[in-house]
């Protein structure tokens, strides 16, 4: 880890005044579950680290007129323990529950989940966000790509978005609230994740002088669930995940949001799956068809065809789980 200046603001204004204008200069520290390893591996070498854990405005979960507001510094465990979240937004609770390490749930935050960097092992080994060799050649297509993208992977990015909450938040049409010293703005979570075009840009729409302050999830009567395929019961990243939100009209689907995780450089909204479900009852057959529809356009790399099957199953099982409702 390289030496850095440590700032410990207690107000949002103060925190915002400490940010930089270019990526790489300043990093924001919340739970640190991703930032500290990045710094130890010298993937991030900020000259300043701004701790936001003491900024009160960033905490708390409240019901508001616009929906449920979740502060960016709310921990994943707080999220999971919230009766309101568990009852009304089960897809979000499922995603938080899947983070099978109490230590990470206790330290990691909602804002941190959205802003964490990809787990791509070429990136983590210092070959850059787009994983290229010294000659600029992309390493992933001809390399070890078993954990990489099967959708949206025509380049230049091949990693999968690491966010675990992103797919559920997108399925709920949530908005992320961003603030900078000059003001604040709201961005749909769906637009928050972007596919970077070069190594110096980011995989999120946040600007270097901004902080995520919170999330707002509109209230609606829906059925929802997240299903993740993980190899280990112990802490592990999903191999594929799906969050679904269903608006039901009687026994049939009036509207569906199907969002896949860990299959593309961003959470992947599948309009195809939503269309396949419209007007249908959810059963094994329709859920299977939706899974197939969601992956119809998949373009697996040399080692990750299996993820197509896993993603189909994730969609199917998330739909069946949502339709069954909470156990």
């Amino acid at each position: 880890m390289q030496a850095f200046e440590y700032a410990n603001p207690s107000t949002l204004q103060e925190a915002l005044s400490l940010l930089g204008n270019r990526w790489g200069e300043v990093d924001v520290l919340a739970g640190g579950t991703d930032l500290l390893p990045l710094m130890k591996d010298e993937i991030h070498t900020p000259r300043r680290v701004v701790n936001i854990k003491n900024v009160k405005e960033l905490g708390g979960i409240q019901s508001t007129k616009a929906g449920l507001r979740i502060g960016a510094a709310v921990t994943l465990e707080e999220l999971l323990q919230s009766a309101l979240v568990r009852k009304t937004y089960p897809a979000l609770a499922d995603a938080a529950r899947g983070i099978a390490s109490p230590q990470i749930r206790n330290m990691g935050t909602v804002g941190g989940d959205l802003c964490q960097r990809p787990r791509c092992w070429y990136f983590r080994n210092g070959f850059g966000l787009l994983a290229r060799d010294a000659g600029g050649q992309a390493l992933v297509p001809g390399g070890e790509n078993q954990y990489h993208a099967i959708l949206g992977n025509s380049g230049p990015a091949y990693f999968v978005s690491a966010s675990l909450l992103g797919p559920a938040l997108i399925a709920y049409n949530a908005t992320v609230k961003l603030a900078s010293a000059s003001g604040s703005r709201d961005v749909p979570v769906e637009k928050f994740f972007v596919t970077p075009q070069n190594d110096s840009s980011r995989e999120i729409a946040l600007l270097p002088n901004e902080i995520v302050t919170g999330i707002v999830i509109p209230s609606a009567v829906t059925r929802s669930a997240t299903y993740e395929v993980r190899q280990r019961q112990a802490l592990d990243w999903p191999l594929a995940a799906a969050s679904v939100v269903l608006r039901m009209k009687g026994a049939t689907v009036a509207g569906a949001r199907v969002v896949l995780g860990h299959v593309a450089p961003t959470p992947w909204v599948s309009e195809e799956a939503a269309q396949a479900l419209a007007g249908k009852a959810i059963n094994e057959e329709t859920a299977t068809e939706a899974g197939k529809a969601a992956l119809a356009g998949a373009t697996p790399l040399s080692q990750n065809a299996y993820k197509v099957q896993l993603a189909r199953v994730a969609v199917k099982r998330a739909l069946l789980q949502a339709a069954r409702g909470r156990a």
Partner: protein
Amino acid sequence: MPDYSWPPKAKRKVMGRRMDRLDGPEKASGRAKYSSDVQRPGMLYAAILTSPHAHARVTSLDTAEAERSPGVTAVEVVSGPGTEIQWAGTEIVAVAAATEDQARDALRKIKVQYEVLPHFVKDEDLNKAGSRARAAGEQVTGDPDQAFKQADVVHEGYYGIPVITHCTLESHGGIMEWQGDQVAHWASTQALTGIRSDISTSLKVPVGNVTVHQDHMGGGFGSKFAADRWGVAAAQLSKKSGGRPVRVFLDRATELQIGGVRPSAYAKVRLAARKDGTILGWESQSWASGGVGGGGRPPIPYVYTNIPNQRQTHQAVSINAQGARAWRAPNHQQACYITQAAMDDLAAKLNMDPLELFKKNADVTARAAVYRQQLDKAAELIEWKKRWHPRGQSGPGTVKRGLGLAVHTWGGAGHASQCRCNIHADGSVEVELASQDIGTGTRTIIAQTAAETLGLPVGAIKVKIGDTAFPPSGTSGGSTTVGGVSSSTRKATMNALAKLFESVADSIGAPAEQLEAVEGRIQVKGAPAKGLAWKAACQKLGVKTITEMGENNPKQPGGLNTGGVGGAQIADVSVDTETGLVTINKIVAVQDCGLIINPKTAESQCYGGMIMAGVCGALFEERVMDEQTGRVLNADMEFYKLAGIGDIGQLVVHLNMEPEHDQRGVVGLGEPPSIATITAIANAVTNAIGVRVTNVPLTPARVLAALEGRTA
């Protein structure tokens, strides 16, 4: 010479008891000081610059700026200009500084230039190996051609098991303090006595000037025998820093790149059999790699060694990766998997229950009766008769369940060991050995052995190990420790007791040879009322201390220890055929292990072996090399996957403790139960889903590919 033989089982009071580890509370509460916890006055921290290239030549090196960096006391070049680097992670320069951060800051100021050379890092595809594969020659037994001609059934299969690392909980390293002509080392080692010689040789310091200390260490599994390049560099840094202690411990990423690996093994196998399941012939073309030196021939056919007609070829594949080190039962997991996955497939081809096939062919093993009995016991514990189904006939539903079995063998006779026993006039007893407790419970079983011999409670024995000031004892490798230290302890304590008997014979009024030590008393055999309490007896020593030695000579163990064991394991798994995820329901292990000093720590060895080498190796562990960059891509604990508690399933251990086992003497147990588990799990998965997943670990990618008839 006294009769050192173990007391009969019925008479043992301390040995054979399920005792908690003596150091358990210390370890569980964090009070135990591992060598990586040790802080020495004035201690410096070493950091090591490593090569990012898998194959390169160092052309120039400039450390001037690093030497001037704040806090830096010394710089030691490990791989100077001209050195050919054979794997990424190779140590180039070590730096000592007042803090770890300062040492790492200094590393960034070192300028190294490399001439990058072509590398080769993938070992599975033999067609790509070219000149990197070296043939080890053909071995033929009997008449394999004739056997395959006569066979009713021939099974052909391919099996692969990859390179994995040791991934010890405590990383590799230690503290080196080289002051004047004296070297002190706080080690994380499996070989306290051995590493002393290694340091002496490496540093050209007389062995008597080297001391090694280690109270606790966090796992070695075969990877921690030597001082290693980082240890030698730390010693040089200490010397250059005026003798200040230098701490070096590899970080996890480096540890996973250079701390040692288990070699891979791949094989194309053919088995010839009669309709009734009798195996007539074996043919294999195997290859393996543990690194730049290639990889040894796994001992195949494994356990079923005496298949009458065999032909084998083997090729050692050299890759640009760190060299292999002994890995808990070296080459046995590989050999077991290649042999017994093939036998399981043969059974399926014959429409035969594999339990019957494994038992039927037991005559070509070294211990037919043992394996038949163990297989029956394991089958009983898992309810094989009731629950086994022919391959693939698990029934409807997406989750399929299956059973699979495997057997193994190991040596485990005691190593050379010397022990000193002191009995003081205040009644206190010390047992001293330059041995090490590598986490197995060595302290505890030494105390049990001494307490048994001296007729005292375990708490009355002070066990002193982990220091080369004590008499030399062997390396903890090959499951040799328990046999070695229990035998030397038995002899030393008996010799000391004989001296005590001599000292008190007159006071008690009976000849020394008629005395016995029982329940805290020295008393006359057959007349227990006539005697002295232990403390009163020791008081008779006056100003004397009894100091006696005992030695285990592996060539003459005198019945106290022996080697050669068998074991059988059966796994019960469920496989989600939609996701390829494997869940372990239960694994049973039946293990032969001679006289058991502590059934609890013995069972712990089985659990540990089944989890570490079995569940992890079967489902998760694999080092991922990248041919483009030559690097290990998963040198971290995120993608170098190990099992967590929720992944393990139920483990059932049945130790063979019948009189015929007990009479054999003590046998080591660290390795045997770690061997068969991978194969049992893999065979269970095959039984569940109906097709062989040829390569472990059994990842969703591989399981789904096998189900779809693809290669992953």
